[in-house]
């Protein structure tokens, strides 16, 4: 009963129902191999949704993640072109993503500019920087080294590394959110910023940390994205930030901050990922995809928000007994 009340459980059921519907029309979709493919395909969304979740928990929003991803990915590709080994590229893009996130975080923390304004600005700046770096030129598969392209595709225990990275990030972040003081601070800062100050938690510093984490994940995803699709150009992942926010919203992360779970964010991302992957397979015209994911978002918000409605104070004894 209480299990059924949890948002994550509802979402898990929704995902299963979705898979069942798809399987009824196209059984091959639910074979392990294909599900692994869907998971791999959804990995970037999962990684970014995790970062976005921490940011949204602190009452902020990061619209610059996709641009951050694209910039870091391009830098990774350029480094590869200069012959830098992957072992250096990988930490470098993570640090760079974190630094770009830190820029957002600092503007929010030190100057108190609303995050939506900051990241709206940095979104265009980061993406524009790619153009300045490359003059708009594409970097194509043949210009990328083989080890660079191979890492995310390498299959270990039946899953490509790309998917394993997402799985690892989910596990680590799940642990961090539940058990690290900073993880709990995310909820405190988003739930009651005023009170967080009284508990000795700096609101700004926590928001900063969330932006840095989101940035680092975006940087890592940048490399994975470029390596996986084997092409880098200015417009990589344009508009992806809205998918990421949508995944969080579907996953029950409260946009007002302070409420939401890692599991929710992951399932929100999987839900969107399955829809995206299933439409072409099931034979629904791709032109329907946008409307379908829009409707899914709307239904999810309605379920989440209405389900979270304040039940009132329940003063009457008999009413209390009933609930």
């Amino acid at each position, binding site marked *: 009963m209480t299990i059924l009340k949890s948002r994550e459980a509802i979402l898990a059921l929704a995902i299963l129902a979705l898979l069942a519907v798809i399987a009824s029309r*196209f059984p*091959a*979709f639910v074979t392990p191999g*294909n599900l692994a*493919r869907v998971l791999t*395909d959804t990995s970037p969304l999962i990684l970014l949704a995790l970062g976005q979740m921490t940011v949204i928990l602190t009452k902020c929003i990061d619209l610059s993640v996709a641009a951050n991803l694209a910039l870091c990915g391009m830098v990774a590709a350029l480094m590869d072109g200069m012959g830098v080994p992957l072992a250096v590229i990988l930490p470098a893009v993570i640090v760079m993503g974190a630094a770009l996130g830190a820029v957002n975080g600092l503007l929010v923390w030190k100057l108190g500019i609303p995050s939506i304004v900051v990241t709206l600005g940095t979104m265009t700046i980061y993406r524009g920087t790619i*153009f300045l770096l*490359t*003059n*708009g*030129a*594409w970097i*194509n*598969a*043949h210009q990328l080294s083989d080890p660079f392209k191979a890492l995310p*595709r390498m299959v270990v225990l039946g899953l490509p590394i790309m998917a394993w990275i997402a799985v690892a990030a989910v596990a680590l972040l799940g642990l961090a959110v539940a058990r690290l003081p900073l993880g709990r601070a995310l909820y405190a800062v988003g739930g009651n910023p005023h009170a967080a100050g009284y508990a000795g938690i700096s609101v700004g510093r926590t928001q900063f940390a969330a932006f840095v984490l989101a940035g680092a994940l975006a940087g890592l995803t940048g490399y994975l*994205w470029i390596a996986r*699709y*084997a*092409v880098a*150009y*200015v*417009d*990589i*992942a*344009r508009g992806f930030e809205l998918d990421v926010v949508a995944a969080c919203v579907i996953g029950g992360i409260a946009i007002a901050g302070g409420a939401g779970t890692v599991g929710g964010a992951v399932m929100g991302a999987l839900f969107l990922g399955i829809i*995206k*992957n299933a*439409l*072409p*397979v*099931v*034979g629904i015209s*791709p*032109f329907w995809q946008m409307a379908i994911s829009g409707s899914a978002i709307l239904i999810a918000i309605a379920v989440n928000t209405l389900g979270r409605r304040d039940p009132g104070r329940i003063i009457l004894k008999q009413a209390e007994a009933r609930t």
Partner: protein
Amino acid sequence: EPMRIALVAKALGIGFFEAANKGAEEAAAELGDVEIIYTGPTDTTAEGQIEVLNSLIAQRVDAIAVSANDTDALVPTLKRAMERGITVISWDSGVAPEGREMHLNPSSAPLIGNTIIKLAADHLPDGGQVAVLSATSTSTNQNVWIEEMQKVMGDYPNIEVVATVYGDDLADKSYREAQGLMQSHPDLDAIIAPTSVGIVAAAQAVTDAGKVGEVNVTGLGLPSEMAGHVKSGASQSFAIWNPIDLGYSATMIAYHLAKDEATAEPGATISIGRMGEVTLDENGEAAMADPFTYDASNIDEFSSIF
């Protein structure tokens, strides 16, 4: 004062258009008194292209040669350009006739339509299933080629086109669409991608799915971008016209029209320098040359050029 010719790309940064720009510069050098303004939006939208066109009109350039993101949406703006005395032609991807003086096709549309299906059919002696991975659903030229392809399907009775999907000229979307094609059509034999972005993504998807040899990727692509995939066998062959020649020819035509050395009317013949000459048909369109097919035998020769 040199003549200023604006070469407007669908979007900046795409290898194909960068190569066309090389050709335009070559033509400018040959002509002597020409300055090329190579520009375009940063994403493939009509709105972005209109803003670029507006600033070109404001600079009173002498000629605009545009590869359009949208056949119709650019027309009002280009009409205004012509009203202000600017020579307007389209190339590669065309504008509706009222929005330009003439249109330079890289090749003739029927020829391209036939080529892309033939490329697939040549490697399917026993017939089979093919699918089309196009650019955006609004790309004029792709739509025309696919239409032309459909017209000649009767010549290939064993070949069945099972689906047409759109990758929007985005690498990731094209990749996913190609994956989807292989999923939903397990017996697929070939993917035809008449777009340089889509063909690379499809080849990558085929490689990643471990279906090299099983699914042949073909269509229109750039040798430099496709070299690896031809060698790996993901693509047996593909075709393209030379974008350098295309930029060169468009510049030449724009120059002659702007100088009033030629008029854009049906039947008119315009010289395009080293490429010879083109003749306008009743729609004011002309075709530059035949598409050229690349395969393992000649890919290395061209992959360093464009």
